[in-house]
């Protein structure tokens, strides 16, 4: 595959065009990673401001109009809406698990059922989060068990 980089016309925005017969998963993942890598994800913890690597985030949670990124031990506030984070990171390993939460699948150790019909995700840092019934399907899709409707 040839790689051609051209300068856009003056005044035109930068654009990436992929010309191929059928884009494979590897190519799509690469392009999505590129888009996400360009996204600013700044975390605020008291007076501290930190650049967050999305791979370090265990889950995002919305609480009283504020959104927090839960890392291994620290919790940072992020200036994004939950739906924006979902749009940004769902092509990667993040999946909505309840109305107020998006979880990083790479941080799930294992899943277990609850008697209430929900699932419980045991995270690698020992935390447990609940996956609502409504979002189990999207998790199964991500895992390749079920197909997108």
């Amino acid at each position, binding site marked *: 595959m040839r790689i051609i980089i051209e300068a856009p016309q003056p005044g035109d925005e930068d654009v990436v065009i992929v010309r191929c017969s059928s884009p494979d998963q590897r190519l799509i993942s690469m392009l999505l990673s590129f888009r996400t890598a360009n996204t600013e994800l700044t975390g605020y913890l008291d007076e501290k401001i930190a650049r967050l690597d999305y791979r370090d985030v265990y889950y995002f949670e919305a609480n009283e109009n504020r959104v927090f990124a839960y890392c291994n031990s620290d919790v940072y506030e992020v200036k994004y809406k939950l739906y924006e984070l979902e749009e940004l990171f769902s092509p990667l390993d993040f999946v909505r698990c309840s109305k107020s939460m998006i979880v990083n699948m790479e941080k799930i150790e294992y899943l277990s059922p609850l008697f209430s019909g929900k699932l419980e995700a045991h995270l690698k840092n020992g935390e447990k989060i609940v996956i609502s*019934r409504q979002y189990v399907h999207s998790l*199964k899709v991500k*895992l390749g068990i079920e197909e997108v409707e």
Partner: protein
Amino acid sequence: MIKEFFISLVHYFVDITTAVLIAAAIYLTASGQQMDSIILWEILLSGFITALPTAILLCLDTKGVKTSLILWGTHFFLIFCITLLLLKMFGWCRITPLSALLSFLAVIFIYVFTGSVHYLIDRKHTTLMNQQLRKRYEKKDQTEKKTS
């Protein structure tokens, strides 16, 4: 959301109706009563009516254990009241302290039955999901080994 509601409604309708049928079969055998054909329709209707609040409850995305417990408690109380109302409406038995206690036990049985069925189904699904998760991690480990 609407699709999820209808799926839950159908699942719980089937489970509750099966549990009510078991309970009715045990009761009729023990009491030696003959079953009228209308009772089958009454069982189906009672299954549908009790499945409705269950499907609604499952569509609610509760946050926190306390809220969940309150909702499930309310749901149990509601189902118990509906059962008593249906018993009276269909004339299955007179409402006495004993029949109320038996209904209470029957509701617990139906609760445990449907809960266990769904728990076992979910356990099967989570086993499959955990296998997929393990495969993902193994694949990732192999890729990391290759790149290093």
